[in-house]
């Protein structure tokens, strides 16, 4: 089969990092990504299925890998060579249309669940992520044993498969994984906003993840005022359409939050601020801004994947701010106390919020250079989510 594959090659990672500063196209050509012909992965066990992707999204973490920016942290948690791609809607070998919950959790690795009915992302010990029978890998798309969505075939464990209802289109389904991430981040704000008078949540960044967080906030945290810092017109329009109360340029976000909560501005910090802030960017600047606009004892949810950042944390110390990561999804506790799987919530959300409108363009796998270039400049080019379309790619199946 044809696939895009990443090999462990420090030299190529370095070249990609250098070239990415000039042009994503050069980074793709010079970097660790290769368009290759490989055998489909073997089925690791009896509860595993072959999945043929229909659509697979290009995520920010995928771009970070391709452009050589992935953090060294992952060196011990992934295995090479791997096929990227974890935002997948596809068909199983038993004829179901599914979306894949990509985390290679306890069930997939044959380990005891941390609690009954735990989702792949649940648990508080990640040892299973590097245990046999699979090669190390936090999720499909970063594991040598499973393949990934940027190929015509991969394998997935039964615990990872969610059947897609007929009324959900492929374009909606490919948004389930990022929507789950956004909903998870939104629900991580719940403890700071539920039961609070006039709660305010700020969202910094309105790419795919920021927009999915807005959808999650509007859908699952009722009565919260959502203020979004969005850079590009398409992002601003979609943030508004998904339920943001106020959408401003990111540079204007601190003042917009101040106005909303009626606090003071002391130096470059707000005296109060948002009850919670979702940072959907993950840079030094965005985390710094998030800390400055979040009220004392508020929470900053780090949804955007950071790498190495430089932060002045005196404010965090003084304001006793909670800074928490929001990697994926699992089992959620909703504001009414009920529990639900994030992916189930996301399957509802993609249809009801019409998240197919975030899918701006699709490309065949063979046009991966242009696809990745488009994804790297999505906001600037008026796009949000770029995906590979493998539905009619006979070439990819050869």
């Amino acid at each position, binding site marked *: 089969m044809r696939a895009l594959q990443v090999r462990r090659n420090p030299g190529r990672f370095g070249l990609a990092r250098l070239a990415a500063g000039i042009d994503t196209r050069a980074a793709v050509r010079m970097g660790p990504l290769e368009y290759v012909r490989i055998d489909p992965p073997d089925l690791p066990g009896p509860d595993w299925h072959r999945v043929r992707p229909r659509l697979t999204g290009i995520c920010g973490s995928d771009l970070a890998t391709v452009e050589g920016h992935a953090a060294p942290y992952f060196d011990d948690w992934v295995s090479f060579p791997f096929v990227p791609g974890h935002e997948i809607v596809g068909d199983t070998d038993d004829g179901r249309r599914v979306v894949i919950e990509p985390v290679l959790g306890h069930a997939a690795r044959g380990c005891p669940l941390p609690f009954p009915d735990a989702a792949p992302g649940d648990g508080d010990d990640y040892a299973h992520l590097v245990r046999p029978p699979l090669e190390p890998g936090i999720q499909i798309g970063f594991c040598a044993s499973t393949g990934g969505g940027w190929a015509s075939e991969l394998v997935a464990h039964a615990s990872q498969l969610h059947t897609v209802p007929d009324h959900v289109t492929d374009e909606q389904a490919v948004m389930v994984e990022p929507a789950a991430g956004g909903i998870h981040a939104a629900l991580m704000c719940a403890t700071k906003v539920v039961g609070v008078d006039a709660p305010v949540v700020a969202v910094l960044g309105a790419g795919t993840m920021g927009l999915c967080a807005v959808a999650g906030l509007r859908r699952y945290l009722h009565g919260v005022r959502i203020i979004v810092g969005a850079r590009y017109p398409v992002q601003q329009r979609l943030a508004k359409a998904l339920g943001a109360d106020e959408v401003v340029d990111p540079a*204007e976000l601190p003042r917009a939050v101040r*106005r909303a909560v009626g606090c*003071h501005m002391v130096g470059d910090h707000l005296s109060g601020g948002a009850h919670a802030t979702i940072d959907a960017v993950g840079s030094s600047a965005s985390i710094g801004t998030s800390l400055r606009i979040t009220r004392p004892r508020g929470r900053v949810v780090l949804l955007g994947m950071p790498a190495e950042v430089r932060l002045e944390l005196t404010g965090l110390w003084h304001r006793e701010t909670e800074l928490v990561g929001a990697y994926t999804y699992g089992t959620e506790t909703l504001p009414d106390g009920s529990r639900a799987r994030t992916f189930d919530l996301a399957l509802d959300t993609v249809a009801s919020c019409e998240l197919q409108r975030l899918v701006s363009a699709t490309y065949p796998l063979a046009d991966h250079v242009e696809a990745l270039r488009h994804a790297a400049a999505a906001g600037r080019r008026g796009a949000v989510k770029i995906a590979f379309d493998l539905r009619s790619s006979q070439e990819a199946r050869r």
Partner: protein
Amino acid sequence: MPRPGFVHHVDRSTPPTLFWRGEGFSLERLPADRSRIIYAPEPLPAIDDIDGSIRHALEHPIDDDPLSSKMFPGMKLTIAFDDVSLPLPKMRRPDIRQRIIEAVLDTAAAAGVDDVHIIAALALHRRMTEAELRHAVGDRVYDAFAPRGLLYQHDAEDPDALAYLGTTPHGEEVEINKRAAESDLLVYVNINLVAMDGGWKSTATGLASYRSLRHHHNVHTMQHSRSFMDQHRSELHKSNWRMGKVLVDSGVKVFQIETTLNTDTFPQPFDFLSKREWEWSARDRAAFVASSKSLARTPVRLARKIFHSIEAPHQMTSVQAGAVEAVHRVTTEHVYRQQLVEVQGQTDILTMGIPYICPYNVHSIMNPILVMCTGLGYFFNLYRNKPLVREGGVIIMTHPTLPDFHPVHHPSYIDFYEQVLSQTTDPKEVEKYERRFAEDDWYRHLYRTSYAYHGVHPFYMWYWGSHAMQHAGRVIIVGGDTAAVRRLGFTPASTMSDAFELASDVVGRSPTITHLHTPPLMVADVS
């Protein structure tokens, strides 16, 4: 003998005309045979004996008793004075406020008055710095009163320092500075730079609170003030006069001292800015070229500093004291004598160059909202009878209109620009946001303790231009930051030619044009 104002009809021999562009200027050629340029009257001669005239005015007041007869030991005397927004540019020392305040204090001292407070009548403007206060009242007065807390600035947000005096028959609440209201005598020291200033506006606005000001600083009043320079056709003034009656009925005793200035606005080497271009000497042309070229290479912050350091040579042309309304009638005559220019009829297009300064950015930044206010609020309103541009006509302004804001002076302007103008530029819609800004605790804190304009102030600036916005078919800014101009709801143009082309959609291919060659200030008496 100074020459009166002049309307020059542009022909092919007319040299290019000077247009202000913030901290710079350009020469623009206006179409021949259908354009005219209005020049301000030349400066009237200053009073020879300024201190003598002041003393004479105090002892020979209009419709009132001599100031000395009103003074007695043990009395409570308050002297209020116009703030940093007047005059423009700031005048060379000694400022006339200093001369008048010193004369009033001499009179008080001679009468054995020792309970004297001196208050800067800020209304909702920013507080003045020590340097600005010293410039206005002089070092002697400042050093004698400020250290003892007897020279201070009106605080429109201090509930303990305000006195509610009642309402007008129109339901307008009157609340002014408590010390001023409860004094045995309030002496108000005014500078009438334009006909709008002075009269009851001095006290009823300068010493008032938001509760009071909101009754006349609103869209309805501004749109029905035609113009601000014509008291009898100005709802703004009628409201202030009604409030003045409440002051009188409440027993507030005001001794009004009003002054007028001539139009000698710019010192050398900038004096060419006041001249008619065809009369420029070789030295004037050289000064224009040198200053234009050097300003073009000067960082904008430095250029601002250079311009704001200008001290105008304008001098006092009259001083009168006594009863507020009687004094103001005489003052207005003096203002008109200096500034009035007779103009025949309206035109399709009004052009004006917006300079670096307006009343609200002294030692500060002319932000986009102030550009709008200066052009549409002030310059457009420099008329009597009818606006210079016909209804549905086009107003063209020249200014860089950078989206720069002074973070200390104009904090609520930034939010106004970001939050309000991004949603609407319609003054009636804008008004819906007013209360929240007016009552924002942070703005209130900065107004009271820092050097910030009150939270509501950008709204007032926007209302100030609401009559012009209602009147004009299109507003174009030449040379402005495109995004900022659009945020204001106006049309950006790169050059004057482009602006005329854009205007042709509204006023046709051969419109008549009037250029208001100001500053110096003038009032067009449009027949």
